[in-house]
């Protein structure tokens, strides 16, 4: 197990800069998720930690040792690939043993480790099979087994669940969690799925366009998103964000000709034009905040998403499954006690509180 520190990592592909001075300290035994949309640079960052890609600037430190020029195999880390990358002609056993064999480990020790990992992952009866005879979920386990037997100081996961169906994904997510609780190995996990990030991570690193938008625990990121990007990326459906001006000394908000009565006065920014954010689950039908026109109802079973407009700004309200407002009708909307958010429209940064 080890600390992993990234110091000002930048990466250029030709003239294109895909990572901008990424800075993060990952504690020993921590499970950190790199979250972001496709092409945000999260996989590249992971591959730089693995040593499969060289950083254009900055340092990677593992347990305080600078490993920029250390070969991947000598970094003592293991990686689980998106497509698992199991060697198709080798049995499950050989796939798991291969890395150890190359290191010249004694046959008995290899056997012990492979069997122990197989037992932990419940794939003992699959050891003699070839990867093509396995289901997606089984392959995924073998890929993890291959990483575990190495007993590395850190695990790198590159979207390991994206090739699984929804049900298996939930189950495997749970198993990765259990595994981490048991092994306590420092883990970096790349995903574009916010549910995976929220459930697995001790801390999430949200990335966008090669920059770190926010680093924090899942609860922090949900409750206090640092930028409008994080606000819109975390949460489903995303946070409602609208251009607004604080009026009446902070008691109301002017949004495209309509008025919102705020739950708490917000005096410090009175008169300023800014971005106002509130999550759909922190709004309710009925109440005194504002009135909007209903455009569409999305039924999710457990609850309804009421899509409407306030002036031209779209607003989504998460409502109970017992309410059925007609599209075209006007409904009153109120705030739940949850937080409202303020962002600077130019910098998109969070404003107090």
């Amino acid at each position, binding site marked *: 197990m080890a600390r992993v520190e990234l110091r000002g990592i930048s990466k250029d592909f030709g003239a294109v800069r895909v990572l901008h001075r990424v800075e993060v300290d990952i504690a020993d035994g921590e499970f950190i998720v790199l979250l972001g949309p496709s092409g945000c640079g999260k996989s590249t960052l992971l591959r730089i930690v*693995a*040593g*499969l890609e060289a950083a254009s600037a900055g340092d990677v430190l593992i347990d305080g040792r600078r490993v920029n020029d250390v*070969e*991947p*195999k*000598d970094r003592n*880390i*293991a*990686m689980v*690939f*998106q*497509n*698992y*990358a199991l*060697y*198709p*002609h080798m049995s499950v056993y050989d796939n798991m043993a*291969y*890395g150890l064999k*190359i*290191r010249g480990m004694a046959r008995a020790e290899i056997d012990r480790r492979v069997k122990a990992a197989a037992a932990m992952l419940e794939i003992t009866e699959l050891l003699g099979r070839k990867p*093509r005879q396995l289901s997606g979920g089984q392959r995924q386990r073998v890929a993890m087994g291959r990483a575990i037997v190495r007993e590395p100081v850190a695990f790198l996961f590159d979207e390991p669940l994206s090739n699984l169906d929804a049900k298996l994904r939930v189950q495997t997510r749970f198993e990765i969690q259990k595994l981490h609780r048991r092994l306590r190995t420092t883990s970096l996990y790349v995903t574009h799925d916010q549910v995976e990030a929220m459930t697995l991570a001790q801390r999430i690193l949200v990335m966008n366009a090669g920059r770190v938008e926010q680093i924090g625990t899942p609860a922090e990121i949900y409750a206090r998103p640092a930028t409008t990007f994080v606000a819109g990326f975390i949460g489903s459906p995303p946070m409602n964000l609208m251009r607004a001006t604080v009026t009446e000394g902070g008691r109301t908000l002017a949004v495209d000709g309509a008025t919102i009565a705020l739950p708490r006065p917000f005096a410090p920014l009175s008169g300023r034009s800014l971005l106002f954010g509130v999550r759909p689950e922190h709004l309710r039908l009925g109440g005194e905040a504002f009135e909007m026109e209903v455009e569409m109802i999305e039924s999710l079973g457990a609850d309804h998403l009421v899509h409407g407009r306030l002036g031209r700004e779209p607003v989504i309200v998460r409502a109970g499954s017992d309410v059925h407002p007609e599209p075209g009708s006007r409904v009153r909307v109120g705030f739940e006690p949850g937080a409202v958010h303020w962002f600077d429209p130019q910098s998109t940064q969070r404003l107090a509180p």
Partner: protein
Amino acid sequence: MASVAPPIAHGAARMRLREDGFAHLILWAGIAITAFPLYLTLVASTLAPQEIAQAPMPVLPGDQAWHNYRTALLEGATMRLSPPVLTMMANSLVMALGITFGKIVVSILSAYAVVFFRFPLRMAFFWMIFVTLMLPVEVRIVPTYAVVSDLGMINTYAGLTIPLIASATATLLFRQFFLTIPDEYVEAAKMDGAGPMRFFWDVVLPLSRTNIAALFVILFIYGWNQYLWPLLMATDKNLDTIVIGIKKMIGTGDALTEWHLVMATTVLAMLPPALVVVAMQRWFVKGLVETEK
């Protein structure tokens, strides 16, 4: 294609029967055209010389098979001073196997270099290999002969095989296959700590084995059937390959031709390629139906 058709489908079934019959007719005609000369060769190889000389030649096998094959194998066509067919077959085998193994080894390694390594002028090398496709043996035969002759390799097995080993086709084939190997394997191997040659032995080579089997079949037949190069290269008749040997057995002008021996030699010449095809076919088909990626 015997199937029990329900009465309602009777018309359709009859229609299909007619179509099937037509297809079979064409196939049988094709087989007859291909097989009849082979059959005549086989028959002629079992006849006595006088029987072959008759017109028309008998179309049923004679009783001289043992004698003809024994003479051909052990003595050759003595009237034309050819070496025994056994020697010629050994020469052909050395040449065909030399070309086959040489080509596979050289081309798989060069394709590996071109696909998996980044080195200066990589694409230039690739194109240089590619361009040689336009220069088959026949085109470059004079300069090749000059080089081989200067190296003192005339009338040697080395001279017979080495110039035919360099091969763009096999390199291209392996290159195309290597390009389909996912990058993740390379990266997984890097994480596992496998160096380039280790990766080649442990991953690339086992994955290529069906391609190698297919190439083996193609290249063996290519090597076995070589005519022009051995004709030019080997003036020593103890280095005659079987293809050259057959040609030399046939007399020109007034010279007598021992047709029964020529036919027996021809049959023998066809055996090894046929054996290779039959033996490798299992692998060949396996490689086509079974995808391991």
